[in-house]
């Protein structure tokens, strides 16, 4: 499974999201490839990903993508990330 973590610049928030998502996925026992991307790269990457993780502000910029878009409010809250990824995979 491919997951893309998206932010505006591709160095800060998306990297944090990628790290925390990997922690959560490992706990859930889900095998996934998480990629951090800036908005430009993400629009392409999201075409082949199953899940996109991003913030509310950036979800709108992403436009129409086939991937399921998960909006994270607190990037440091592993519980929130766990709940939202679990819901998306059901």
């Amino acid at each position, binding site marked *: 499974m491919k997951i893309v973590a998206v*932010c*505006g*610049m*591709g*160095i*800060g*928030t998306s*990297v*944090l999201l990628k*790290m*925390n998502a990997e922690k959560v996925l490992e706990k859930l026992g889900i095998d996934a490839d998480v990629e*951090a991307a*800036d*908005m430009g790269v993400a629009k392409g990457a999201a075409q082949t990903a199953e899940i996109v993780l991003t*913030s*509310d*502000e*950036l979800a709108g*910029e992403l436009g129409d993508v086939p991937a399921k878009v998960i909006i994270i*409010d*607190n*990037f*440091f*809250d*592993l519980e929130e990330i766990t709940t939202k990824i679990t819901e998306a995979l059901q």
Partner: protein
Amino acid sequence: MAINLAEALCSITTKASAQNWRDAIRLSGAGLVAGGATTDAYTDQMIAAVEEHGPYIVIAPGIALAHGRPSEAVLTGGLSWVSLKDPVEFGHPKNDPVSLVIGLAAIDHTTHMDVLKALAGILSQKGKLEQLVAAESGDELRALLTDAASAA
């Protein structure tokens, strides 16, 4: 093992005064410049990022991660810490107001991963932010960060 965030920060400002989010980002940029991580141009780039994409850098309640892209304005990369005396609004629907602005400069997309990992490890601890923002001085903050790192 994970790096010690207290040593990784290139500058620390506690109880700073900012009128608005631009001010707050400028302080974090000034910290990066003072720490030798970036030039002044990077500070403008961090502000431009919010003007372009909105307040998405407010990544958790009370916490903003100010950053731009890797560019010529980044000399070595680094992380600056600015806690605010009075929180400011960034215009984020859920995570306002902001009391901690972390300035991040990176030379590429991967070399700063360990620092971010250390930061995430500490800030995911519940109630930690309040404690860190309450620190009155750089020394006090460094001590708290060192404790938090060993507890993580």
